[in-house]
């Protein structure tokens, strides 16, 4: 029963925050609504037994990416750009498209009988992620060892070489992004100085 209550609390906050991002007009309020939504997603991850992913979501996404977004909001949302109004026609069209899209996805999801899918499993058969101990198992999977209970059950699940190559690629990717973003966002003062000298 706790699980259902907590699920509903987190689901309402996550969904409500997401819808709030769409509905609100003030950019700072939108950012705050997004924070609530992503924080509740971390709560959903905890409920799903993915404790490492949830902690990463809080640390990287909420504590890092959203802070970055808020910096962007502060730097660009001064004065007239705080609330950019949309025309009523656009709002209605957006809402209609959104509802249509959501109903398509919802009917698809509900239409599938998940119990009959052969890979479906009942919950609480993997004690490792029930006890909140996924960090070791995830680490082992990065090396390629499916170290939780799927040994003996599905020997061929999980990538046999692990996720080391994607890990290294992501590391290089982050380095490239770091250099690129720093270059793109550098302060460009020489152009204005040249323009001033051109006028003088």
């Amino acid at each position, binding site marked *: 029963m706790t699980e259902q209550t907590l699920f509903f609390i987190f689901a309402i906050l996550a969904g409500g925050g997401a819808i709030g991002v769409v509905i609100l007009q003030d950019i700072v309020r939108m950012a705050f609504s997004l924070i609530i939504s992503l924080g509740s997603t971390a709560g959903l991850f905890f409920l799903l037994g993915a404790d490492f992913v949830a902690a990463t979501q*809080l640390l990287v996404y909420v*504590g890092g990416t959203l802070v970055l977004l808020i910096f962007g909001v502060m730097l660009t949302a001064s004065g007239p750009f705080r609330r950019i109004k949309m025309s009523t026609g656009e709002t209605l069209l957006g809402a209609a498209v959104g509802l249509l899209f959501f109903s398509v996805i919802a009917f698809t999801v509900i239409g599938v009988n998940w119990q009959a899918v052969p890979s479906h499993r009942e919950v609480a058969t993997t004690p490792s992620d029930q*006890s909140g101990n996924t960090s070791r198992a995830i680490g082992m999977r990065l090396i390629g060892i499916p*170290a939780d209970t799927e*040994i*003996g059950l599905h020997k061929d699940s999980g990538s046999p070489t692990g996720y080391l190559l994607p890990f290294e690629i992501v590391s290089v990717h982050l380095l490239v992004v770091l250099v690129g973003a720093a270059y793109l966002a550098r302060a460009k003062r020489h152009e204005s100085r040249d323009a001033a000298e051109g006028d003088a």
Partner: protein
Amino acid sequence: MIPTLADTATTIQSTLEGWKLSEGWAMFLAAVIHVTLVAGFFGLPAGIFIWAERKVSGRIQDRLGPTRVGGKFGWLQAIADGGKLIQKEDLVPADADGPLFRVAPYVVVVSSLAALMFLPFSDGWIAVSLDIGLYLMLAVMSLEVIGVILAGYASGSKWALFGGMREAAQMVSYEIPMSICVVIPIITAGSLNLNEIGAMQSGWAGNWILFNDPFTFITFFIYFVCATASCKRAPFDLAEAESELVAGFLTEYSGFRWSFFFLAEYASMFAVCGIAVLLFLGGWHTGIPFLDGLLDGPRYASDSFVYSWLTNLLGFTVFFSKASLLVCVQIWIRWTLPRLRIDQVMMTCLKYLVPISCVLFLGAVIWPLALSFTGHTTWGSPTGNRAAPTMRLESRGASPPSTSTLPLRQRPLAASDSNEEAGR
């Protein structure tokens, strides 16, 4: 069985159910009571350290500090401060963004106090015991930045906005060397569970991770610097720089909302010093096996849990004293060193602390590898009196785990099998 605080919650719940409440209400009320107890306990460090700060700063400045409230030493000064702040006028500036202005202190307080939930105060005395406790603690502490930005923005004044932005930049930047410095004892210990890391450092003080290798020794000091910076303490306190920005992001806050920020600051100071004690300084162990095992006789003789509880109380006292000592060092540094400029703060982080911590990380990882050529992987037995963590395999067949599924440290090395076992 060592009673943890989580057990307290379940016993409260079962007591409430014994009084004929339904399961849902019993659980809810038990949670409320539990949270109130824990929050009341977590207000304690803040109360003590506010008094300690005023006394220590007074002495450093050659004066006495508070001497009137609660006797000669002003013990109850924190309570008097709290009382004064509660009865102040609740002021919200006209330009302020109302809801965000009101929410910001709560975000900061919640993140600081929630981080204390994952900190073990003694063996088993931990509110929420998770295998990723340390990681989650860092994650929750990083949510404080959001509150700071909100406070700076929602105050509607340019001093607050500048202070908030600078402060957020500083806190986010210092998370990097802090996380790297935290990872180093984690690799040494092999676990993210703070309870396990603390339990590993039992025995002589030489077992402390601080003395494991020279890299962890230096890491402690680097971590302490990063922790001081991330708590916005001087010399990194540009945000509250009274002489420059009025009061930074706190400018428009007065009365009880202001006290929330300071409650959060002292709580997070205690939290980061608690992490330092657990990761480096032996946690709740005194470092003298005689003192640690003082109650072992009656504990193992009688079956009552009172003696284990008393042992843990001793451990708690030791932990609290060590963490308080570190907080006093932070207070001492604040009143001794001048303030750094914001560009100096960022330069220290990005140009000095990050490369230093990366080099220390590399060293700490290579150290056991280099030592393995001499036949040991560690000097002495710094893992204390506890065996290395094994992979908990729970396959239904209960077959013995094959060696390839053991974590790497326990896998027999190709060349030096017996030497590895001997050095362990």
